[in-house]
């Protein structure tokens, strides 16, 4: 029986066999044959308005479902528009396959129209990449790409697809994956698990430090069993948020630069750190030479290169987190709560995460608390900056797949397209992008995608009229010289912007309007943007200054010029400059 088809059809058949149900993309000249095949297939394709959006949607989809996200872009500018999204997925170990069009094979290297060496460009930001040169390799390469993307430490894989390769005829086969140089380590060594268990039993002041690896390994239940069996406190990185329920008495919340004081104190005082799927990033460790000076370090990671990369490790455990945690839980015997737990509870009581509530101006933290109260089970995505940190701090996270944020790369403009991707993967969930006014504009064009495809995500803009996080640093360390961080609140009018796209726009300017606006947004089944006019002077607190030890974490004063804050003057000056005296 002959199975002849075009390269484009082989691509679609490969996607189908890999279980892909939705792709995010935007066509172009070299992709015409592929898109023609898509037209004739039953693959669900979401047309984006900018390819960066496609990459972040695939990423958000992957994080919300645990499946491989797929995005498609044409050659040249389409492919380069994916780059930020691919780098973002690489830094956060997100399983993703990016498909790019390429010029005909005989034109490669000739600076042909819309040619870009995208495999060269993405070499350092992909787990692996391929330039297909023959249609007969399509199925093998697609199968390998999905396998590589989702196994071991997940990551993005790019496949560059020259036009002629999609046109050529090929016999369809589905070869087994055979990669002699790829051994994603699966099972942790039993000896190492025994050693780790012994260290955990002997420790008087243990802390479990959890990163995104626990989420990708879906090891949160094993983590829970282990932590509760030995009553060890658990702190998570930004990527690990949700892996341990934050309303549990053993939860320390997030650690690091904007973590809780008690998490940072616990780490610094601990005699044993069990790091699981975390990589001792500089935002977590602060000054590395004085990080956890008294602690023995056990490091469980599926990527051997992470073990010993940033800190010395006493007991390395290379392997899958689920399997390793399960093994550990079996090895340890139950331990009651003790003096260590009490000490931590004391810190927690003395240094809670708080803010000063206000009756006249909306506090951004209050918006997050209200969102958490009214939509506790929502998937939260974030942009980058203060909005992201407040979303991490003030929403009570309980599910690893329900907090989606750009950690390693810190990409402004990530949250909104990621929310669209997440909603495509988990349509039954409410999905809310917690955004800053700066970040949102970086991919606001995807409002069209959400409206046209009827993807009812919700956006909560904490509109402070500035690039808040950078402004915060300028306030603290550059004597309030607000160089290029004041955006003003007049442009754009976010409510009108939403309406222009056909979405719902809502605004709250007073604390009393926050709840009704959220309720109204949750009640609609249309894409909805909520514009919360918040106190511009608010800072993310506590904070470990750059280069300091993490226990030197500061409580920042909230706002130094009354309720309105010194920023309002900047806004009125700017409005005067634009609109003249009467405009303000």
């Amino acid at each position, binding site marked *: 029986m002959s199975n002849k088809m075009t390269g484009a059809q082989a691509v679609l058949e490969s996607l189908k066999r890999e279980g892909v149900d939705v792709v995010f993309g935007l066509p172009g000249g070299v992709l015409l044959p592929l898109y023609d095949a898509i037209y004739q297939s039953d693959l669900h394709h979401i047309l984006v308005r900018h390819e960066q959006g496609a990459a972040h949607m695939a990423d958000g989809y992957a994080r919300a479902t645990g499946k491989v996200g797929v995005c498609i872009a044409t050659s040249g500018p389409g492919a380069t528009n994916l780059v930020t999204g691919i780098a973002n997925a690489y830094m956060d170990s997100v399983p993703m396959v990016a498909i790019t069009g390429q010029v005909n094979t005989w034109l490669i290297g000739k600076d042909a129209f819309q040619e870009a060496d995208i*495999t*060269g460009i993405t*070499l*350092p930001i992909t*787990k*692996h990449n391929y*330039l297909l040169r023959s249609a007969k390799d399509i199925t093998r390469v697609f199968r390998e790409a999905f396998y*590589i993307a989702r196994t071991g430490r997940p990551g993005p894989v790019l496949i560059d697809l020259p036009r002629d390769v999609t046109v050529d005829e090929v016999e369809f086969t589905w070869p087994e994956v055979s*990669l*002699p*140089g*790829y051994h994603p380590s699966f099972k942790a060594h039993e000896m190492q698990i025994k050693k780790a268990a012994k260290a955990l039993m002997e420790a008087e002041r243990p802390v479990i430090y959890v990163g995104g690896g626990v989420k990708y390994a879906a090891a949160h239940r094993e983590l829970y069993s282990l932590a509760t069996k030995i009553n060890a406190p658990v702190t998570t990185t930004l990527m690990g948020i949700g892996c341990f329920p934050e309303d549990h008495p053993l939860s320390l919340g997030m650690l690091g630069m904007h973590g809780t004081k008690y998490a940072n104190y616990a780490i610094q005082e601990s005699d044993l750190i069990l790091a699981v799927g975390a990589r001792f990033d500089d935002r977590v460790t602060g000054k590395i030479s004085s990080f956890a000076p008294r602690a023995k370090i056990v490091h469980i990671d599926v*990527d*051997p*290169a992470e073990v*010993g*990369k940033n800190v010395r490790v006493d007991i390395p455990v290379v392997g899958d987190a689920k399997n390793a945690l399960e093994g550990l839980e079996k090895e340890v015997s139950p331990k009651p709560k003790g003096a260590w737990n009490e000490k931590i509870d004391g810190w927690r009581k003395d240094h809670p995460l708080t803010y000063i509530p206000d009756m006249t101006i909306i506090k951004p933290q209050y918006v997050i608390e209200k969102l958490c109260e009214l939509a506790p089970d929502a998937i939260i995505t974030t942009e980058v900056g203060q909005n992201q940190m407040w979303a991490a701090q003030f929403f009570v996270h309980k599910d690893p797949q329900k907090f989606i944020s750009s950690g390693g790369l810190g990409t402004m403009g990530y949250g909104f397209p990621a929310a669209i991707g997440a909603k495509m993967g988990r349509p039954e969930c409410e999905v809310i992008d917690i955004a800053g006014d700066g970040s949102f504009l970086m991919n606001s064009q995807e409002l069209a995608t959400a409206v046209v495809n009827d993807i009812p995500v919700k956006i909560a803009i904490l509109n402070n009229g500035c690039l808040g996080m950078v402004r915060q640093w300028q306030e603290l360390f550059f004597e309030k010289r607000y160089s290029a961080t004041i955006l003003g609140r007049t442009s754009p009018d976010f409510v009108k912007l939403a309406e222009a796209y056909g979405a719902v726009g809502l605004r709250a300017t007073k604390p009393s309007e926050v709840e009704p606006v959220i309720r109204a947004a949750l009640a609609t089944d249309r894409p909805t943007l909520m514009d919360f006019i918040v106190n511009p002077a608010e800072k993310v607190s506590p904070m470990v200054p750059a280069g300091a030890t993490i226990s030197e974490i500061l409580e920042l004063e909230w706002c130094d010029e009354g309720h309105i804050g010194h920023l309002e003057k900047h806004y009125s000056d700017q409005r005067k400059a634009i609109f003249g005296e009467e405009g303000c």
Partner: protein
Amino acid sequence: MRHTIAVIVENKSGVLTRIAGLFSRRSFNIDGLSVGATDNPEYSRMTITVEGDDEVLEQVIKQLSKLINVIRVTELVPAESVERELAVIKVTADKDSRSEIMQIVNIFRAKIIDVSARSMIIEVTGDEEKINAIVQLLRQFGIKEMARTGKVSMIRGARVIKA
């Protein structure tokens, strides 16, 4: 400290770029790199010399091992391995200096592979020190041009590094 590692890689286009890119991105210092065929046409072998302490070496090995096209990475400890490099050196040579140069060539068991009225090309193989030594001696005559291969290395005895 200097370390020598042997890397068996798939013989595919772009693999050298991946390895060179990895070294520059992670700020590892490559002192030398040579690539060539193995007994199996599907694989090539690279010999890479890197500068750094043991922690750097560990990272180099782990990061290289993560590349999908890299099959095996092995450190070659100098005391347990043999190392060879080849150099071709074009020196100024006229009738007055020719015989003296030939003496040096003999002492080093090198070879003369080309002669002209005013120059000679000398081929020499050996470990790095030996090549450095002959280069040093030939300088007095005037080195016009030199090309070195970078070293290849192999473990002594019956142990093998294979895909």
